[in-house]
């Protein structure tokens, strides 16, 4: 019998064996994955809303989910979480497009200063256009907004320079940009702040060339500030809420977006040795699960789907379960954890000082 490439090959190369035959929960579309995340590696995340699931699972799995902007430790953790600290590795909110990510890096390093960089909603409500939902209720003044943003961008620099692994979830190709300097907004101005003005804001639907170009710039600069950084790309399976293309149906617009992002991700893994693709998109949208991983709105992903994605992520992209010993006694304590311990101790004693003073004032009479 003649020999040919389809005579041999692992089961995963064959649709019948790898997609149609297995039980839905056993389908594993991850091919060879060239990175193993160890518990001591700092893993940062960014991207569209789906990226929050990755952050959540990393946190609870005992891996070193890296948060460079944890918020002031004087506030309890619950308060910080309610104000979007720790949702991602820095308080940048959702980053939907490659253009947004690239511009975030440029802004962090002072290479890009958008003109339209402050939205006034009321006398005491100001928003950062590049993360309009980051601060619930907005900032009380433009001065406060700018002060917070400077500290935020310092944390972004710290994040890029110190991470070991950066997990980025592509969300969209459609975006709105400034007509003055091309600054990309995470959401159309006027939807969650700002005011829409067709002369000031232009619609942009990125192409493969755009995404690959912007990500190439980003990855090149990341390698410059952090030569050891590894990058995992994934594509969000969440469809578009709406398309701004009047000539298009949202389903077709979604297919275009996700296709562009998937192709771009593939091209980037071929171009860069430190870039790896993880198939979250395929796991959720693959026909093998017959749509079971989407909620009734056919947009939001159910926990069963997230669990399937993250189970395979842990299996292929990490070194395995984190042992109890590893979480209880890490080999070395990074300086930031030492500082956190010192801060916690100081805060406890500050509370004690005030309490003691309150008790003793009864004993001290003028």
């Amino acid at each position, binding site marked *: 019998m003649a020999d040919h490439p389809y005579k041999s090959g692992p089961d995963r190369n064959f649709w019948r064996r790898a997609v149609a035959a297995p039980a839905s929960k056993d389908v594993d579309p991850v091919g060879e994955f060239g990175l193993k995340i160890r518990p001591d590696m700092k893993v940062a995340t960014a991207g569209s809303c789906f990226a929050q699931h990755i952050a959540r699972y990393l946190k609870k799995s005992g891996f070193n989910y890296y948060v460079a902007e944890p918020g*002031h430790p004087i*506030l309890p953790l619950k*308060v910080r979480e309610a104000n979007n600290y720790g949702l991602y590795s820095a308080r940048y909110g959702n980053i939907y497009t490659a253009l947004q990510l690239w511009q975030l890096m440029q802004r962090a390093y002072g290479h890009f200063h958008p003109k339209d960089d402050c939205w006034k909603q009321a006398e005491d409500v100001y928003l950062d256009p590049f993360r309009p939902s980051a601060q619930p209720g907005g*900032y009380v003044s433009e001065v*406060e907004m700018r002060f917070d943003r400077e500290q935020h961008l310092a944390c972004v620099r710290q994040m890029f320079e110190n991470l070991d692994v950066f997990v980025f979830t592509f969300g969209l190709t459609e975006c709105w940009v400034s007509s003055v300097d091309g600054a990309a907004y995470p959401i159309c101005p006027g939807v969650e702040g700002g005011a829409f003005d067709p002369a000031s804001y232009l619609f942009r639907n990125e192409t493969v060339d755009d995404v690959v170009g912007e990500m190439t710039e980003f990855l090149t600069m990341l390698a410059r500030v952090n030569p050891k950084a590894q990058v995992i790309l994934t594509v969000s399976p969440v469809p578009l809420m709406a398309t701004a293309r009047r000539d298009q149906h949202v389903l077709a617009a979604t297919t275009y977006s996700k296709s562009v992002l998937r192709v771009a991700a593939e091209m980037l893994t071929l171009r860069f040795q430190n870039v790896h693709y993880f198939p979250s998109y395929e796991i959720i949208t693959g026909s093998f699960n017959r749509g079971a991983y989407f909620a009734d709105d056919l947009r939001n992903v159910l926990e069963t789907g997230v669990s399937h994605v993250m189970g395979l992520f842990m299996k292929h992209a990490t070194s395995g379960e984190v042992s109890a010993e590893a979480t209880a006694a890490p080999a070395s304590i990074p300086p930031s954890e030492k500082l956190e311990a010192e801060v916690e101790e100081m805060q406890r004693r500050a509370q004690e*000082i005030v309490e003691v003073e*309150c008790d003793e004032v*009864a004993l001290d009479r003028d």
Partner: protein
Amino acid sequence: MINLDQIKRLIARRLALSDVALDRRIIVVGDSHVSAFEQAVSFKGNATYSQVEVYRFEKTKGDISIGNISYEDFLNLAGELDSRDHIFSAIGGNHYAVLSTVEHPLGLEVFNGPNDREPYSERAKLVPYRIISKYLYDAVKSTLGKQLRALRETSSANITHLSPPPPKADNEFISRYFEHRFAQLGMGKYGPARPELRLKMWQIQSAALERLCAELGVGFLPPPAHTVDPSGYLEPYYYAKDATHANRRYGRETLKQISEFIIAGETSPTGSTVLKKVASR
């Protein structure tokens, strides 16, 4: 012929209290800040305020017992009062101090409202206004708020909350106190936080207290105007010998303020949300 009512009015005038005050109870209750009132009431020469009853909630720490009434006993007492009586609350008040007495290793910066334009330090870590103001509001609501609500529901008396004294500006004064106290608690390397931070935190807390009192239908009195310097700090003349409390003289000034409040008839009607401030800056 002079009758009994006329005699009461003569006595009241001499004592600088309205005659209406003689047949009602005036109570100050709370935690550590009532110390200023205890001392003012008991100080010789302050017979004027001898009818003011001062209660401090009991607390036991190790061998030390503080206070003269349990919270539950005070609720029972409050339940026996009527609409002629007055309760002035000096409960709590030091949430802001926990955040801003000691210099934080990371620094701490806040902007107190839209008109606060100058950060003190570019390096100090910011807590945005909307976070800190909600945090302080939630803190006072979950502590003082519960107690005031219980008083409001239990008592027919007029209830007014007294602002805690403003913070002290003099860090050298605080450092002299801190040197000993901090050494005892092993905090020798930390010093007092900058006074501007203490003032901002106190102001944010005050706004939270006013809002809470309005929601609960309880009155709110700010500090007596002349105990506060032009920048908003407590005048040094009213310092107690520690980082956060005011002294007997402050207690006396607040008692004067309370007297004027009652005399003016600007009482907070039982169950209403009317706020009246006699001494305002």
